[in-house]
């Protein structure tokens, strides 16, 4: 059927590819020539970045010198997809990657696999001196600093001032998950969280368990032989918070598919009341909904257990240099500039991703963008934050937790035990994940 229809046109078809082929040939030749140019002239350092609002591109331009040019390449949106793309390329020995923005939970895996070039001692010392303690911990594997802390993020509890005024809850003292779930469900409000089946859900679970004083695993350095500690009273308390929220009227309708973005949308709607989310959400509504922007209040991350200090999530980016890079020395110089206090400040100003160092917070334009008490809250929260365990097997642990704790409405008192068994089996390689 298709053949008679297409054959009369074949004559035209045969002519048309020529200009296309010519153009393609020229493009290829062009890029070969450009490649030659690179080798003889200034090297181009390729920096694989996570998508952002232009902060990393800005500092890449700022840090390009006569000796090298830094170019950015954007990775996928999803942190686990970023890991996949980088690891596949690195395992294949791709030498076109020089610098990489790496999410903290995957740092250990990359370092353990030998994908990261060792950071020279003087640079490591400088980075350790300038960075927050939590940022350094997350960037360290086997006692070596393996990536340069670039930005450090944390979550705080955001609330709508109008809602809080209406229901009369005192937000000047720390609140617990129980309190905000109860208040929201009784007054037609929602509590926004991240509970889709993705890394963000494990961020929440980890924060809840840490807030109760527990952890997902212990002896993380033992790799696959780490001790799984999900099945504990702390795990049970975390499960209770999730089950309570999922079963209450305060649960957003899209709870089981909610991420940072959708939770932000719910918070901005009429039923928005509380939200746990990263620092950048503060300026999220400036243009889209100025009324909501004026209505945002903030306080410390909610407590899992009343009276016990909350352990907010820790996020961020460390910059690593690929061991396969042709320009390791230049890349290390670039890292020094990219992670300088000023660069961190510029990035924070543009993206809302907060600096990994106290020096970064001193950047003047940043102080104009955020109220002083909020900047102080961010720094306190980073200090109190509970990083996810530093282990090369984080991705397996995280996926196993996601499998057993999703969806939030299925979480009950048996979940911690089930997930502990499953994580153990996964680490032992006895089960499909």
């Amino acid at each position: 059927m298709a053949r008679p229809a297409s054959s009369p046109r074949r004559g035209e078809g045969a002519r048309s590819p020529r200009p296309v082929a010519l153009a393609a040939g020229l493009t290829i030749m062009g890029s070969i020539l450009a490649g030659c140019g690179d080798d003889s002239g200034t090297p181009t350092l390729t920096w694989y970045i996570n998508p952002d609002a232009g902060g990393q591109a800005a500092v890449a331009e700022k840090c390009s010198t006569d000796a090298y040019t830094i170019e950015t390449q954007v990775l996928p949106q999803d942190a686990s997809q970023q890991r996949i793309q980088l690891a596949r390329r690195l395992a294949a020995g791709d030498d076109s990657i020089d610098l990489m923005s790496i999410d903290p939970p995957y740092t250990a895996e990359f370092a353990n696999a030998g994908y990261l070039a060792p950071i020279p001692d003087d640079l490591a010392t400088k980075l350790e001196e300038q960075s927050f303690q939590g940022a350094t911990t997350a960037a360290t594997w086997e006692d070596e600093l393996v990536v340069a802390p670039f930005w450090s993020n944390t979550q705080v509890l955001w609330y709508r001032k109008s809602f809080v005024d209406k229901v009369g809850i005192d937000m000047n003292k720390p609140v617990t998950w129980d309190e905000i779930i109860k208040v929201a469900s009784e007054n037609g409000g929602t509590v926004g969280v991240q509970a889709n089946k993705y890394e963000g859900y494990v961020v929440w679970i980890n924060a809840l368990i840490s807030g109760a004083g527990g952890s997902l695993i212990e002896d993380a350095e033992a790799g696959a032989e780490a001790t799984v500690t999900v099945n504990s009273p702390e795990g049970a308390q975390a499960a209770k918070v999730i089950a309570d929220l999922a079963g209450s009227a305060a649960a957003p309708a899209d709870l089981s598919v909610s991420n940072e973005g959708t939770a932000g949308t719910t918070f901005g709607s009429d039923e928005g009341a509380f939200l746990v989310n990263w620092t950048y959400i503060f300026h999220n509504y400036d243009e889209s909904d100025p009324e909501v922007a004026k209505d945002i209040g903030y306080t410390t991350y909610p407590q899992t257990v009343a009276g016990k200090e909350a352990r907010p999530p820790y996020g961020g980016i460390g910059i690593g240099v690929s061991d396969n890079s042709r320009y390791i020395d230049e890349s290390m110089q670039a890292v020094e500039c990219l992670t300088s206090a000023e660069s961190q400040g510029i990035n924070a100003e543009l993206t809302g991703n907060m600096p990994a160092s106290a020096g970064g917070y001193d950047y003047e334009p940043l102080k104009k963008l955020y109220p002083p008490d909020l900047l102080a809250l961010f720094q306190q929260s980073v200090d109190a934050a509970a990083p996810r365990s530093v282990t090369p097997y984080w991705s397996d642990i995280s996926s196993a937790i996601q499998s057993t704790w999703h969806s939030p409405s299925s979480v009950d008192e048996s979940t911690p035990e089930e997930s502990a068994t499953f994580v153990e089996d996964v680490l032992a390689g006895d089960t499909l994940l």
Partner: protein
Amino acid sequence: MTTVVATPETKAGKAPKAQASDRAVGENRLGLKLVAPAVVLMLIVTAYPMLQALYLSLFRYRLTTADEREFIGLGNYITALSDSLFWQDLLNTLIIMVVTVAVELVIGFAFAMVMHRIIFARGIMRTSILIPYGIITVVSAFAWQFAFSLNNGFVNGWLPFVADDFNWFGGHWSAMFAIMASEIWKTTPFMSLLLLAGLSQVSEDMLEAAKVDGATWWQRLWKVILPNMRAAIMVAVLFRALDAFRIFDNIFVMTKGAEGTESSSFLTYRQVIEQFQLGMGSALSVLLFLMVLILAFGIVKLFKVDLAQARGEG
């Protein structure tokens, strides 16, 4: 694909042996010579990765801890086959396959009838029926995900019996429904195209004769049209069933396997690509390959499809 090539050859080889003329033998030889380069090329391109996968499936091998590679024989197969997740995903895959192929067969047949019978605006009608098939699966999956999405979708608003805040991706069956709806929308045109080819093979004379004999429309459909296009229907079912069995894109885009909507191919993808478990992933892909083979063989045998006849050779 191998079965498609193999069936006519064995048929042609067996029957005419007794009275094969020199010419028939010569033609047969020429045919084999003509097909040989393609077969060799296919073997080179497909046999190497398949053997490599078979080899890798015998190891515990993780890309990021390559030094710890360890030979474990059939260990990966035993782990996979004794795991409930494997069977759960296989069940999901089979449900998706059976439901989508059945629905597509009915809708696709209706579309084929329309395309076959329509007199005015024939080109436009045929084109518009075929549009979904021209859309990239990932794009159509995103379109359907947005349609069903709670935040920016319209499905809840359109369906009177569904609450406005119903989360389609928050439950197993509703998520499966969304996935299958997308799959059906996307591939029904393919089904109807194959059926249209079969429909146009049904002789008008027979239909007229049946009409003269007083057969109703329903009788003509069941006694004349369908039996005469059986081969085309079976080819359509075979192709679509194998296609549906390998479903991946829709699940990847819409749920990422959440709510137990994972298919066998998605499980394999996660092992190899997400977890870098090259050994386990290879074992699963070998199992997947065997299942597709069994499925193809089963459908061909069960329905006695003569592929040579379907291609107009018989």
